């Protein structure tokens, strides 16, 4: 039950998404802190494969019992994979936010944006000051 669950090999946004960079592809999810703040996730509205998303723009929605939260894309690109398992098992986002709870995979359209993401230390600092 610690908010300090911030893997060192990922990049982060101030909106509490994480990005796992694998060459030209990026897997995106929400952080441990985000899922903890949301509470029990009961519904995930996912985008379609092939859709184009722009950095900072909403690409989907996560709903907990109480609240609705938009998902913001950490980077611009084309969606190459969507975690359809979340439709049947939205609680996976609570249980394993960095693993089975991944949300989409993007093919980057502008790799220069990578430098604008936060590293684990910067994200930890942001949470501390939140």
């Amino acid at each position, binding site marked *: 039950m610690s908010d300090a669950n911030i893997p060192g090999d990922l990049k982060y946004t101030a909106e509490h998404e994480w990005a796992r960079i694998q060459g030209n592809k990026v897997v995106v999810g929400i952080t441990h802190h985000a899922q903890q703040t949301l509470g029990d996730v009961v519904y995930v509205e996912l985008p379609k494969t092939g859709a184009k998303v722009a950095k900072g723009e909403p690409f989907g929605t996560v709903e907990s*019992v*109480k609240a609705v939260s938009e998902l913001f894309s950490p980077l611009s690109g084309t969606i190459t994979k969507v975690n359809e398992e979340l*439709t049947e098992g939205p609680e996976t986002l609570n249980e394993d936010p960095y693993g089975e709870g991944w949300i989409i995979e993007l093919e980057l359209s502008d790799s220069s944006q990578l430098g604008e993401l936060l590293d684990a230390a910067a994200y930890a600092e942001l949470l501390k000051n939140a």
Partner: protein
Amino acid sequence: MTRRTPLNEAHRALGARMVDFAGWDMPVQYSSVIAEHEAVRNAVGLFDVSHMGEVEFKGPGALETVNGLISNDLARIADGQAVYAGLLNEQGGFVDDVVAYRFSPERILICVNASNREKDFAWMKAHARGVTPVDRSDDYAQIAVQGPKAVGLVQRLTKTDVSQVGTYRFAEGEVAGKRAIISRTGYTGEDGFELYCAPGDAAALWSALLTEGQQDGVKACGLGARDSLRTEMKYALYGNDIDDAHTALEAGLGWIVKLDKAGGFIGKDALVAQKAAGVKRKLVGFELTGAGIPRHGYPIKKDGNLVGETTSGTMGPTVKKPIGIGYVPTELSAEGSTFDVEIRGRAVPAVVVKTPFLKKS
């Protein structure tokens, strides 16, 4: 300034996530809304509802005075019984929904919503003909003990025979050595009690219930579970499902409106006229048949035309379906009627179902 109940420190000690609710610093959840919801459905849960307000009418004519203010009829119940009622405006809309406790014809206590406390008290003072109301909100803390194991838990802490306290009845006694009104009421659809005690006794009572309730699997529960539990029962929430612009008849609360009672009440004439003319819109319960979750304030559309609005909604933790409540034209209010709920620009099909959503065995 944000108000705190006498249990504020207890909530923080339990690791509750606190939010501002109607000007009060209240727990929304301790561990998980779903776990707390299930504890109430299957075992027992505790809620701090000390933020609710209490207004007392005391003296000769108290019953008649209150009866002129509320839609239900205190003359039809005995001392030691309570009624759910509306405080209605002249148009038949809700100033608030309340529970009125009849201690005697000369002493009536009304429990009001936290968000309406000041408004209700001012309204009652302005409209009371006879006994002058007294705001007793600061004299009472309130703990709700709800769930199938609530009766057993409370019984182990009191000499009062609570099996003799029927639904919507109350007794005065001691629970865990603290003076309390033991009321067989609640807002979850489960059996249980609402315990009114002195603010200074609340922490000890809360702690005793948590300790004694360990064997029952008791959980402290927040506003999140309170909302999902009441939604599954289609119990109205003031400000969401009922308000000053929707009448008691439109809200499907005709059963708390006694049009024939002696002396009448504020709002009666409007409701008589509405009944004669026919109610044009109704509050219904619906399930989504497409993907999504309905929430307060979503448009309801029929064939693309805006016809109503959702007032509450959630993924029901026990019924395990996306359920909602909303106002629709009367012709769309029958069970089986279909319409769309617009969720972020997407039309999601919905069907009117029988309520409560939760069918008790």
